[in-house]
């Protein structure tokens, strides 16, 4: 038996001995609640229950005694002494301001008058402003109260009260001190009943002027040298310029005002006329394309019930005539049945003059 075994055996033995003797296996009991119970007899229980019954009313109750009267406090009849006040000092009169020196009036400079009469400038149309015909009439201010006499309008920062008071301030010279008060004024009143404000006519123009077209070029003054210049066909140049600018003679050549018709508005117009356009697919007129022109009034009515044939495709004269009659009938029929065409009035310049092409190609029998 070597030393290691001896040490091991001794250690094990000691450990076992400690476990057995040292209380390793002696555990503390778990804590638990203990309630003490007293055993009583049935008589004692009956007596205990009897004590918990409702109390009976007791007639003989002692009334508490009222408190005894004490001595009243003494009251003094002497008036309080008035506080002394100082009279305000009179301020010294300030010296008068110095009179400024007034320079002697100088004679007015003489106006320079030329030999040529002044040229009267033509009114500039572009800056014309619509002025009101009459000046604004004074309006009665609206007020909820009516006074026999008109009341002056108080200052804007004065408080409105039933009683008018003057503004006061504390003064050292006063015999009696006055409380500081703010100035008040009676509520604004008027001499006539105005239930609501009447709007004065606006002085500002209600509509602005439409921009004017570019003014025509002024004709150059004829001079003697013009006779020496080579002859040129001015009208041809003007026509070429007008053509390049898409202009030509006639009332329809003025620049249209207002926004253009929308695609929807054009489509509605087109559909409206199409529904009034009766086409006979078997007729020779169904092979003719005609373009007609007419003018609408602002109410959307055909002006003078006049419809003009502007152009047509090639075809028999009778067929062209009947194709035009059919187109004219469609335009007038819509006008009469619907009491005019429904187009936006603000765009009148856009649809005043109309060129309408009636193309029955889709309607032809094939």
């Amino acid at each position, binding site marked *: 038996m070597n030393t290691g075994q001896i040490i091991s055996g001794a250690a094990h033995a000691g450990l076992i001995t400690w476990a057995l003797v040292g209380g390793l296996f002696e555990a503390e009991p778990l804590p638990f609640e203990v309630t003490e119970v007293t055993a009583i007899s049935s008589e004692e229980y009956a007596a205990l229950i009897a004590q918990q019954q409702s109390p009976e009313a007791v007639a003989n109750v002692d009334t508490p005694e009222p408190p005894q009267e004490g001595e009243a406090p003494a009251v003094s009849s002497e008036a309080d002494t008035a506080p002394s006040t100082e009279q305000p000092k009179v301020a010294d009169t300030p010296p008068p301001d110095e009179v400024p020196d007034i320079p002697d009036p100088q004679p007015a400079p003489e106006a320079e008058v030329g030999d040529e009469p002044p040229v009267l400038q033509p009114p500039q149309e572009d800056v014309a402003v619509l002025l009101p015909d009459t000046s604004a009439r004074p309006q009665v201010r609206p007020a909820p109260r009516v006074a026999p006499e008109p009341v002056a309008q108080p200052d804007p920062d004065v408080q409105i009260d039933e009683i008018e008071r003057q503004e006061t301030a504390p003064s050292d010279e006063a015999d009696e001190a006055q409380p500081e008060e703010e100035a008040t004024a009676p509520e604004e009143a008027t001499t006539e009943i105005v239930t609501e404000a009447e709007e004065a006519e606006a002085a500002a123009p209600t509509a602005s002027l439409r921009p004017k077209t570019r003014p025509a070029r002024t004709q150059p003054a004829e001079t003697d040298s013009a006779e020496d210049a080579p002859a040129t066909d001015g009208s041809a140049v003007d026509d070429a310029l007008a*053509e*390049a*600018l*898409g*202009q030509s003679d006639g009332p*329809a*050549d*003025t*620049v*249209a005002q207002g926004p*253009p*018709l929308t695609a929807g508005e*054009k489509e509605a*117009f*087109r559909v409206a*006329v*199409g*529904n*009034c*356009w*009766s*086409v*006979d*697919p*078997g*007729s*020779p*007129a169904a092979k003719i394309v005609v373009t007609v*022109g007419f003018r609408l009034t602002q109410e959307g009515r055909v002006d003078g*019930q006049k419809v003009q044939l502007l152009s047509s495709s090639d075809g028999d004269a*009778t*067929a062209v*005539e*009947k194709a035009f*009659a059919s*187109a*004219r*009938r*469609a335009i*007038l*029929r819509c006008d*009469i*049945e619907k009491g005019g065409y429904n187009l936006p009035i603000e765009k009148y310049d*856009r*649809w*005043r*003059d*109309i*060129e*309408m*092409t*009636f*193309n*029955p*190609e*889709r*309607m032809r*029998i*094939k």
Partner: protein
Amino acid sequence: MMKHVLSLLVALVILGLPAAAQERSGPLRIEITEGVIEPLPYAVPDFVADSAAAGDFGRNIARVVASDLSGTGLFREIPADAHIARVTSFSSPVQFADWKAINAQALITGGVSVDDAGKLVVRFRLYDVFAGQEMGQGLQLVGTTDGWRRIAHKVADQVYTRLTGESPYFDSRVVFVAETGPKDARQKRLAIMDYDGANVSYLTDAASIVLAPRFSPTGDRVLYTSYESGFPRIYVLDVASAGRRVLQSQDGTMSFAPRFAPDGRTVVYSLTSGGNTDLYAMDIGSGQSRRLTRAPSIETAPSFSPDGSRIVFESDRSGTPQLYIMPAGGGEAQRISFGQGRYGTPVWSPRGDLIAFTKQSKGRFHIGVMRTDGSEERLLTASFLDEGPTWSPNGRVIMFTRETQGAQGRASLYSVDITGRNLRQVPTETGASDPSWSPLQK
């Protein structure tokens, strides 16, 4: 580089100016490509009778005029009880506002009187209500009291022409085969009537079967085929006298399907000889015939073009009946029908632009039209049996035979517009077939 940019900008501005100016100025331009197909509303109050002798002519004439116009499908009459204005005198001014209010786009007023000679005098005026003016000038027609219907048709013809721009067709007649009795023992007679079925009269008796009458270009004669001799022979009949004569033919042959040339002197027909059927042309005065086709197939149903230069006919040389066109003097024929089915009985339109035909396809019969080159074929009808088209004098309407199915089936006449609309039955007292429309009466 900067110069190039400036030049480009200047060019763009110059090029853009016209477009911008165009956008901002000028009339509003609208193109209408879709219309409606609806009859034009019109009003025709009773014609005012100037005397008691005029009696009911005023009302009757107005009714015939309205029937003619409304029967086209192009016009719609506004009934008299909807009228606001009353026409009490032919010469009284027209209250256009009252007619506009009822949407009458055309107004026909008239007066009727009987003169000292017993002639019926009819006057009428046509107004464009929307334009507020008269269309054309007033017209006066004089005729016998018995012919009041013709006068009414004349009035309707004038109105039709002024409103449509087309030639009229109301004052015309139709020759047809009147059929009576059951199918297995049917009696057939030639009959003639107004285009609207009125005034029917019979040209032949029922002793023999008659077929395919055809008017002459002037309307005074009728060609037809009769089995009077036991074989089909071609006869020419004078409408006024009902006198008739047979055209020359060789023994042992069958001749049928005759039709006048536009000149009225030549007749083109089919002749069957030795089991072969070809087309022949005969001078009706001399009786001289010449052969137009030489083919082992069946060539029949010839019809001249309005100018007399060409003939359209039916041939089965391709295996099935199809339509061909050849020169009037004969020669190479050109096939024009290429659709599915069998084509027959072609008839050239008086306008010259269309050819009407009968088509059998998938067990049904159709009346159709095509252009003279065979294009744009359109079938206008479809039924158990439609056949034998004939053109109205103005080439606008086609009349044909429609036969119903079964042992009790009855043949009737129908008309249809070339647009395929307005299919109507022509009223006849008996069964009717094989119509031929006359030219407009003089």
